[in-house]
């Protein structure tokens, strides 16, 4: 209760300090400073190290590593792969994002049951390994600019589906992604909400996940982020690797063309 009073008081302060007359630091600037102080020594590095180890480790029923996994730029090519996903893959005849592609490789190369991994809740079992792998693979594209392909028909289709889903209202509160992310300058309490119907700029939105979340000390990939967004909109989880989440990722990723990736990032 105390915290709510303080939060309300802080909001009032923030609104006051938005007036040009006051030279006070805004809450937004304060938070930027806080994030800057944490930038050095992001616990995501612990997951990067784990992910790199898992990529090279011989594991699974087929006793193999993931080093021949094709993330879109050829077997074993990791650098630069993150910023070109999701994309169409000929061998699965599907548009896939990073995490669903990893599960494909874990199944085909190492013999894991992909459907089982997809059903495993986030933060448990092999899902932890998928997250660690995604964290490392993302880090290998840090500083690269997003450049998703829209050459294949399915890639174009998924973009359009993603766009429809972005604006589709539903659930008990009639929310859509656009309710929070469809207008410039929106905010929930002290969280600035990026506008995602076009590129929100370097290191924001799609360019900032996977991310280490300080509030719960968890590493979240884009799959967890999107599924949980749906939960916050009072929808059920679309599911890991679902067409819906991959379509939305395609929409966000194509919109982010040219933006610099900072993943893995640090978030609240």
């Amino acid at each position, binding site marked *: 209760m105390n915290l709510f009073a303080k939060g309300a008081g802080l909001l009032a302060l923030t609104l006051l300090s938005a007036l040009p007359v006051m030279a006070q630091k805004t809450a937004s600037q304060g938070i930027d400073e806080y994030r800057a102080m944490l930038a050095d*020594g992001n616990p995501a*590095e*612990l997951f990067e190290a784990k992910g790199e180890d898992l990529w090279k480790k011989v594991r699974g029923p087929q006793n193999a590593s993931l080093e021949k996994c094709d993330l879109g730029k050829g077997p074993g090519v990791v650098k630069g792969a993150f910023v070109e996903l999701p994309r169409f893959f000929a061998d699965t005849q599907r548009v896939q994002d990073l995490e669903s592609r990893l599960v494909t490789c874990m199944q085909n190369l190492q013999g894991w049951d992909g459907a089982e991994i997809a059903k495993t809740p986030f933060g448990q079992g092999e899902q932890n390994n998928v997250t660690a792998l995604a964290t490392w693979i993302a880090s290998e594209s840090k500083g690269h600019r997003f450049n998703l392909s829209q050459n294949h028909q399915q890639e174009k289709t998924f973009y359009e589906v993603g766009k429809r889903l972005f604006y589709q209202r539903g659930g008990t509160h009639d929310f859509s992604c656009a309710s929070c992310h469809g207008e410039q300058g929106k905010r929930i309490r002290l969280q600035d909400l990026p506008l995602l119907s076009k590129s929100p700029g370097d290191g924001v939105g799609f360019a900032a996940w996977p991310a280490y979340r300080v509030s719960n000390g968890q590493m979240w990939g884009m799959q967890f982020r999107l599924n949980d967004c749906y939960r916050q909109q009072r929808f059920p989880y679309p599911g890991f690797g679902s067409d819906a989440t991959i379509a939305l990722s395609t929409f966000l990723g194509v919109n982010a063309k040219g933006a610099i990736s900072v993943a893995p990032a640090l978030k609240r």
Partner: protein
Amino acid sequence: MADPMRIRAQAAGDKTTVRVLMSHEMETGQRKDAAGKTVPAWHIQEVTATHNGKQVLSAEWGTAVSKNPFMQFVLKGAKVGDKIAVTWKDNKGDTRIDEATVT
């Protein structure tokens, strides 16, 4: 055995800044799980570090240090190539030691 630490030791003149990220839950002992049961305290209690085998750091931590702890300290008189080893021990007796080279 706990996950490895990330240790970076960067020399600038006579000062070497050592940054350490540790993998640990750091449970306060006040949190309740989904079933309503209190999760027992589980945290790093002691941290030490050596420089080329000689002890330089000794610290004690309570439950309020954040999960996946970060620590930074400044070492005097180290040179590129020197070895830094960091050890932690938690209240359950689990321990971890990792090493890094000064760059």
